């Protein structure tokens, strides 16, 4: 009996083959495929919100899909699925620079335009990189803020998501470069990962507070770690004594910033980032944004400067007690 089914399987496969000539997406609507570093990450969800707005304004279809587990190959698989699906342009936030470039290059040779956002791929694998701020800018902003909070001398610790996350590694490099250049009196005493989990960040921060009694500041560079570290500092009774800064979303940190446990949260407007990404993606797909352009007209954001192949949103923005209520994401 199952031999019959095996033959039926082959017949069905052949039948399916013929119908592949049909156009995959039908109609004239452009399709933008947006790839976050991982799904279920509040940061990328807020980027998506901005992206949705732009997609609606421009009248394009937006597909949003991302890996749900940390295996590095997953992003590649999603991109390859999209190549087969026949999307018009892919906008990717790259977890593994070299790894995903493999898949993105293939997309380009299949005629699909590629832009990256938030975290870049290799330059030959994409047309443009929509950067919220350069890694140097981010690293410097963090280090400068740390110095502003605790002065030119002292110990600080960094909590990151995982030791292998590429863009965090880059930020750390720039933090260290800025520290060595401008604040040699500040020492980074520890670097702990929190697996992108708030609870683990809280435990790690609590341990750091105990293990390094002279610690003056915790720098949390992955967004769940900022409220986690803040809670640990608060529970240890060291609010104000040990400063907390980091890269995080205003909504997750509002309470701590207002209480004075967290001094500053640095980020950029993620809604704008998503919005700009889709604007750039559509412009690239339509051919209105080509290499050599110096400016991109991006809907409600107005005219954005284009430097080479980088489209920079702006500088990192510092959310403090004074201004955090103006933002909702």
């Amino acid at each position: 009996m199952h031999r019959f089914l095996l033959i039926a399987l082959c017949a069905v496969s052949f039948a399916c083959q013929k119908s592949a000539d049909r156009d995959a997406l039908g109609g004239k609507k452009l399709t933008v495929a947006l790839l976050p570093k991982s799904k279920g990450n509040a940061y990328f969800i807020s980027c998506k919100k901005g992206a949705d707005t732009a997609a609606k304004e421009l009248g394009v279809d937006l597909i949003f899909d991302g890996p749900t587990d940390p295996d590095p190959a997953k992003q590649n698989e999603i991109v390859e699925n999209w190549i087969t699906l026949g999307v018009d342009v892919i906008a990717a936030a790259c977890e593994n620079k070299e790894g995903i470039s493999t898949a993105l290059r293939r997309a380009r040779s299949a005629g699909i335009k590629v832009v990256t956002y938030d975290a870049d791929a290799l330059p030959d694998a994409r047309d443009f990189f929509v950067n919220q701020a350069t890694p140097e800018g981010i690293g410097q902003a963090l280090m400068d803020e740390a110095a502003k909070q605790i002065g030119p001398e002292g110990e600080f610790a960094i909590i990151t998501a995982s030791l292998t996350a590429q863009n965090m590694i880059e930020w750390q490099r720039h933090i260290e470069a800025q520290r060595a250049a401008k604040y040699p009196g500040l020492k980074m005493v520890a670097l702990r990962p929190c697996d992108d989990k708030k609870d683990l960040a809280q435990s790690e921060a609590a341990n750091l507070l105990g293990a390094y009694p002279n610690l003056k500041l915790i720098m949390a560079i992955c967004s769940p770690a900022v409220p986690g570290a803040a809670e640990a500092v608060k529970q240890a009774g060291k609010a104000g004594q040990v400063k907390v800064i980091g890269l995080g979303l205003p909504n997750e940190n509002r309470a701590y910033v207002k209480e004075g446990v967290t001094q500053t949260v640095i980020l950029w407007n993620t809604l704008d980032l998503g919005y700009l990404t889709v604007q750039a993606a559509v412009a690239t797909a339509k051919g209105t944004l080509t290499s050599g352009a110096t400016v991109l007209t991006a809907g409600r954001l107005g005219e954005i400067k284009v430097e080479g192949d980088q489209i920079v949103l702006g500088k990192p923005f510092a959310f403090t007690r004074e201004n955090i209520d103006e933002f909702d994401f």
Partner: protein
Amino acid sequence: MNSARSRWRAVLLRHESVLLALLLAEILFFNVAGARFGSLNNAFDIVRHSVEIGLLALVLTPIILTGGIDLSLGSLLGLCAILFGKMWRDGGMPIELAAGCTLGIGALAGALNAALIAGLRLPALIVTLGTYSLFRGLAEAITRGVDTFTNFPPVLLALGQERFAGLPAQGWAFALIAAVVWLLVHRTTSGRAWRAIGFAPEGARYAGLPVTRRIASAYVLAGTVAALAAIIYTARVGQAKADAGTGYELLAITAVVLGGTSIFGGIGTVHGTLLGVAAIAVLNNGLVHARQPREVAGMLTGALLLIALTLSAAARGLGSRRG
């Protein structure tokens, strides 16, 4: 004894036929739901994306047949991937030599599991839980978490990304390993021994089977093939990182059990495993074409596993082997 055997055979046949029918149904459904699903390109995508997990599922089959399990294969994939990169980049080895050494390391790691499980008779679940942590931990320690290996020579990348005689290159490697494992399990005395050990370990011992050696060989084989999967993975992605292969062992176990192999040991086929791998791969790929969120694929896979088990149990009726 004969009627019991034919009863088991009937059950097996039934399970695989159901799985095959399910696979057909998936293919038909997704062909309607997604326009480009049925294309040759997509078929190649499916093959390319499922080779590593498929390899792990293939070598898990003998292990599970013996009543054991191996949770460390995904971590071993990650460890072998970075050691492969390290030997080539920092050790200056030619890529072929690095690949050969990686296979050796995989075999050694498998031998560690084998020594503890077959030699010291420790429970496989816990030993491989320990090596699951240990291998991943070593990978993170060696790379200090941050180091990655890339810019591999084209001859390696071709293995993961190019086509060979019309099919994706790694597909041929997979087909070869599948054929070898199938022969081992279904046509050699090793395969019979694995089944017998799974059915009744003490009985197998009394029957004079070299139980320790057979169990050990299953784990060493698994380690070696995991190393091969690591090489293919690196070739496909073009990068070797410490967290490569995270979660692969659970997917592989799902495929094996879906394919009809009993987790208690003694019953199971390699073609069942292949069908299990195909069913899951097609499901994951098809849902993307049907524009469904990724989480749905996970939930459906879990639900599918439960349904498959329940149906099998219903077919089996009474007479479970363990409480």
